[in-house]
């Protein structure tokens, strides 16, 4: 062990062994609790900030993916899953046990801004309290809810009361601060511009937004509980389709499949990986098309041209996906160890349909560029509005097109390869504008890259020898991963890093199933983008984030 601790900030890409990390943290580490994906260090609940700062500043772990909390028989536990934006395969878990009777643990919010919402969620659902947290209250459930639903002694049959708070008339006298003359404006939860049931509490000073606070939880469907009640083999897979429901089903299924396959040590046949890759990219095209359609609707109020064109292209992709999976929206096509069935017969027809779609895609994209990106009014509304600097985006744990629109080159398909992506030829798209326009441009260019990937997959599938078309590995009927194995695995969903944390307890159902939703982290950046801008820019910024409330609230 070296005698002096390095004071200077290390180059983020330097990889340290777990033992070196333990040496770096020194006395802070109480115990080791390694996970399948990363070394885990157990620390005392009052040293969270100190530990995370060392890991962030000196070891380069600058991405707090998720905070997953859970209750054990004898303690509560919060796990901070850290990785690096430069190399997401370098991961480390910080495990913070808290007392069973008085579960208090230090908040990580001063180190990672993104911990704010993640810890609020942990408090809401599990009941861990975070010291030094700026605003610890419920985030998904109504404020008047009794009990913490994912804790052990929760009785789900008890009655509950939800309120309909009257947001008083904004023109009423008491809403005006005597000095600053601000006004309160309610947007949502039923509003066409909020992309679902999102509630924005906005404070205005004249025309300018001084504060916007997203109020979420209007679609909190207990997804984590549903997954914890299902068996690994078959009962969980239908639910991921319903997290990010904008046709991104296969991408979500892959998140669960990847975590569970690594947990149970299942090898997926290469042929199935190619089909998965192709299907997932079709889903990405469909998802980005809707992002484009609704963004145009938000900015131009353009319900007739762009919206219809984009929906038309979505219909084309959905037809292909329906041929492939049998469903338009909720595919339930992946199985642990592969996919449920092979490509539809006759295969030639499916390939030619797919090629037809890919052939007309450049023309459609050209048309979108004519309609939107080269439209002067559209440019005025989106260029240099909703600025999200890269450092801020990283601090909030933003991922996906939002982060790439801020110029950060981070894409799990390339950086933490899975499926067949590393065998194919495609590029990660980034734009440096950091504004609403860049985020849209990233999505539009990603559609082209997805098309490239699909084309290569079709070529591969066409030439695949008939006797090697193995669509599923041999997976036991009932999966029982070993007791107390834990894993966090992520894939690049349509909106960003979609990760799953699973803790197995030796039964055929997960003991804890935590979803790291990209939209949840991305939405947190909204105040950064909107404050100081005009009201229409809030709507533009929200549209450019491309959130899905099903995934934000889960």
């Amino acid at each position, binding site marked *: 062990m070296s005698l002096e601790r390095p004071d200077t900030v290390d180059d983020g890409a330097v990889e340290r062994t777990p033992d070196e990390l333990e040496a770096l943290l020194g006395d802070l580490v109480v115990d080791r609790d390694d996970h399948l994906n990363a070394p885990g260090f157990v620390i005392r609940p009052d040293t969270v900030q100190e530990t995370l700062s060392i890991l962030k500043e000196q070891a380069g772990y600058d991405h707090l993916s998720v905070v997953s909390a859970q209750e054990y028989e004898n303690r509560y536990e919060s796990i901070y899953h850290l990785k690096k934006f430069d190399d997401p395969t370098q991961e480390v878990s910080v495990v913070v046990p808290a007392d069973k009777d008085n579960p208090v643990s230090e908040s990580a919010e001063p180190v990672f801004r993104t911990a704010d919402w993640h810890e609020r969620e942990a408090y809401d659902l599990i009941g861990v309290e975070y010291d030094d947290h700026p605003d610890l209250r419920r985030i998904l459930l109504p404020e008047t809810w009794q009990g913490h639903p994912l804790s052990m002694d929760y009785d789900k049959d008890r*009655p509950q009361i*939800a309120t309909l708070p009257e947001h008083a008339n904004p023109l009423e006298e008491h809403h005006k601060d005597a000095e600053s003359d601000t006004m309160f404006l309610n947007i949502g939860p*039923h509003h*066409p511009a909020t992309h679902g049931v999102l509630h924005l509490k906005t404070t205005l000073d004249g025309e300018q937004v001084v504060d916007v606070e997203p109020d979420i*939880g209007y*679609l909190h469907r207990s997804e984590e509980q549903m997954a914890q009640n299902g068996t690994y083999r078959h009962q969980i897979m239908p639910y991921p389709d319903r997290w990010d429901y904008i046709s991104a089903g296969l991408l979500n299924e892959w998140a669960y499949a990847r975590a569970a396959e690594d947990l149970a040590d299942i090898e997926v046949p290469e042929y199935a990986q190619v089909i998965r890759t192709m299907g997932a990219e079709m889903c990405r095209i469909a998802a980005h098309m809707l992002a484009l359609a609704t963004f145009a609707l938000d900015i131009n109020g353009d319900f007739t041209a762009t919206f219809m064109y984009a929906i038309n292209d979505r219909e084309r992709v959905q037809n292909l996906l329906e041929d492939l999976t049998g469903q338009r929206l909720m595919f339930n096509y992946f199985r642990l160890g592969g996919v449920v069935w092979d490509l539809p017969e006759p295969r030639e027809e499916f390939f030619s349909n797919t090629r037809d779609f890919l052939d007309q895609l450049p023309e459609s994209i050209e048309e979108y560029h004519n309609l939107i990106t080269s439209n002067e009014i559209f440019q005025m509304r989106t260029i240099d509005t909703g600025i999200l600097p890269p450092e801020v985006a990283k601090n909030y744990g933003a991922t996906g097109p939002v982060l790439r629109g801020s110029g950060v080159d981070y894409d799990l398909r390339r950086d933490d390869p899975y499926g067949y992506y590393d065998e194919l030829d495609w590029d990660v798209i980034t734009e440096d504008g950091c504004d609403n326009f860049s985020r849209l441009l990233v999505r539009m260019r990603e559609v082209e890259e997805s098309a490239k990937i699909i084309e290569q997959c079709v070529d591969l599938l066409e030439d695949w020898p008939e006797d090697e078309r193995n669509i599923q590995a041999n997976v036991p009927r009932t999966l029982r991963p070993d007791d107390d194995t834990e894993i966090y695995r992520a894939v690049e969903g349509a909106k960003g890093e979609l990760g799953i944390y699973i803790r197995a307890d030796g039964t055929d159902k997960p003991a804890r199933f935590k979803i790291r939703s990209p939209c949840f982290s991305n939405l947190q950046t909204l105040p950064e983008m909107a404050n100081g801008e005009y009201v229409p820019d809030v709507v533009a910024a929200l549209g450019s984030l491309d959130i899905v409330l099903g995934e934000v609230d889960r």
Partner: protein
Amino acid sequence: MSSDQPFITDESQVVTETRDARMTGQGDRFNSRLREAFGSSPFILTKFDKFLNWCRGSSMFMLQFGIACCSIEMMHTYAVKHDLDRFGSGVPRASPRQADVMIVPGTIVSKFAPRMKRVYDQMPEPKFVVGMGSCTISGGPFQEGYNVIKGAEEVIPIDIHVPGCPPRPEALVYGVVKLQERVANGEASPVTVKPYELEEFSDLERDELVDKLADEIEDDELVMRYNFADSP
């Protein structure tokens, strides 16, 4: 025609049916096939209620209301290819005050149910509701969720249920057309008191829970009380 004369200047050469019809005065622009079918009499004899119901069923304004996954299929139903407007019911209105029909496209959870009830209350009578998808029937795949209302019918009355998870656009079109048929025939579900109503906090029966929340909630604040143990 010679090439140096690109436009026809001789009026007599421009003959279109429309212009003819207009110039002859009694054009048949307003005369539909239906009008011809009535024969010589320009009058029809019907009951006023029946006529009004026929009008209602033929022009339905939908509430633009997206909740969850089903709203994606609902958007596809409104947009090209399926185009609900063909059946006279495809105009999404952003304000509940202008809408006749609410399609409930998704899971209702505890935090949203009071809002949905409020939006429903804001719609003018007569109003109709199409429940789209399994979640609005029973809670669907999320029925066991701690936070999920077991069907939209616990909160508001529903006229037509469209099953599916999610229903295909064709199924939704079928459901809406069925609703139009029912409206045209003057049928509607009776509006009854639902298990979960919005009420003032002070009107709730006093029990342990109410006592506990008494400090947090004002007496005149509207609340919805969920008795999850009694839910189906």
